[in-house]
């Protein structure tokens, strides 16, 4: 290969060609896992952010006379509360429209319907559902509040689990990369045993021998890692294009923030670095067996 110096003591061999392939596959798999985790994480943040900014207040069926007046009082009280962006009572017609597909229009008139108030909080508001309930208790003791906390907690748990799994999978891939690189280095050394022994006997230091192999491995490693990252980016672009054409409301637009791009860019560097350290340590351990 052109990057090798003419007098390079170690010849090219199939066992060294496997290094870029191993690293390309490892970086590709790690890249997909990291991208998947980042997209899931940002989607969860978006969902939970949207839901945390919304509350639904439910009032038990009221008498026709008191209904409108009570609703207006509650909406006015909510509107004036610090941290509330807007409060809107859901009109009965709108509520019935929501229910028709589920229970049919014929029976709706016979069922006492609760009234719902949709409350939107200001971004970053410190208002809690507990505080709202305290205020509501004074004028509507039968009111209930749904702050979606149960659902949000489940989704956040899912997000946390996805992060843990992603870290574990990337760790596992790195571990497999380390073991495979160490084994392929040993295989390479076994192939070049006689060359190593000659160099050792004519006075080459362990560092020199490690550098001779390391220089070659570094070039192959960088090539493999960035090839893997290239494949990851191609896959990501394809997924982005497919997602842009499809309507996937929960996922939304697939994109990465600059910080996420940086994290992704670090991946081949980390894999190359870990591989180089592994190769160097394997060489030193192997050479230590020689007198």
């Amino acid at each position, binding site marked *: 290969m052109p990057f090798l110096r*003419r*007098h390079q*003591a170690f*010849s090219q061999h199939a066992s060294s060609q496997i290094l870029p392939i191993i690293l390309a596959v490892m970086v590709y798999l790690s890249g997909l896992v990291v991208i998947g985790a980042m997209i899931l994480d940002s989607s969860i943040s978006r969902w939970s952010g949207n839901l945390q900014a919304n509350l639904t207040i439910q009032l038990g069926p009221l008498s026709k006379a008191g209904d409108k007046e009570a609703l207006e009082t509650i909406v006015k009280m909510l509107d004036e509360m610090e941290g509330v962006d807007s409060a809107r009572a859901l009109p009965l017609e709108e509520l019935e429209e929501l229910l028709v597909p589920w229970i049919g229009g014929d029976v709706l008139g016979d069922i006492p319907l609760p009234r719902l108030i949709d409350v939107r909080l200001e971004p970053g508001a410190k208002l809690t559902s507990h505080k709202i309930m305290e205020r509501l208790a004074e004028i509507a003791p039968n009111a209930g509040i749904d702050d979606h906390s149960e659902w949000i907690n489940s989704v956040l748990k899912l997000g946390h689990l996805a992060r843990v799994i992603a870290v574990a999978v990337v760790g596992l891939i790195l571990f497999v990369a380390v073991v495979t690189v160490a084994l392929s280095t040993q295989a390479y050394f076994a192939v070049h045993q*006689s*060359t190593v*022994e*000659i*160099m*050792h*006997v*004519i*006075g*080459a*230091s*362990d560092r*020199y021998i490690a550098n001779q192999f390391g220089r070659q491995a570094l070039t192959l490693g960088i090539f493999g890692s960035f090839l893997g990252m290239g494949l990851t980016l191609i896959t990501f672009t394809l997924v982005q294009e497919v997602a842009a054409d499809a309507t996937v409301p929960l996922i939304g637009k697939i994109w990465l923030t600059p910080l996420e791009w940086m994290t992704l860019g670090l991946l081949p560097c980390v894999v190359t670095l870990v591989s180089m350290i592994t190769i160097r340590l394997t060489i030193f351990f192997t050479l*230590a067996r020689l*007198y």
Partner: protein
Amino acid sequence: MRFRAVDLRYGSGPEILRGLSFHLMSGSFQFLTGPSGAGKTSLLKLMYLAHPPSGGAIELFDQVVKGLSRDQMAAMRRRIGVVFQDFRLIDHLSCIDNVSLPLRIVGEEGKSVNANARELLEWVGLDGKMNSKPATLSDGEKQRVSIARAVIGRPDLLIADEPTGNVDGDQGVRLMRLFEELNKIGTTVIIATHDEGMVARFSHPVLRLKEGCLTRIQ
């Protein structure tokens, strides 16, 4: 070089060398002889630091070898030139690159390294084979490349294992004259050979090995 009651065994195998004690003065020329299987090559391995002794102590260049760090051992090996019986050339390197390797491992680069290697290959009569690969050379030519590689670093000690074993009589004598030239400029030379005719022809001291023991130092 001083050996004090040196033993050698490989792993848990039988003792190959037993209780070897001798002292070789700096600048001397020494033959090492003995029948096949006497342990000549094993003794040479101890001398060029390819294997540790299983007992006793070796002193080289006024330093006890045992206890030296790996870097110190490597530095000591660079003061020793070795001509192997089986040449031990690196197959994918040309003659000139094989010969220049001992200089490159100490960081020497550039035209002077090639000039040195070229000069030595001319000295051993291989000026037309500079860029040939070992596979294309005869055994005698490989032997001469091996000698050129052994001496390029101007070693203090030159060890040769059966250096004339693969060449004809005249060529063998010419190689011996080469070693004598090196000895004259201060290199300690140790030649292992089972060629008693060669030993008789050149009047140098002889270490005789038999069944792993030194039987005579003359």
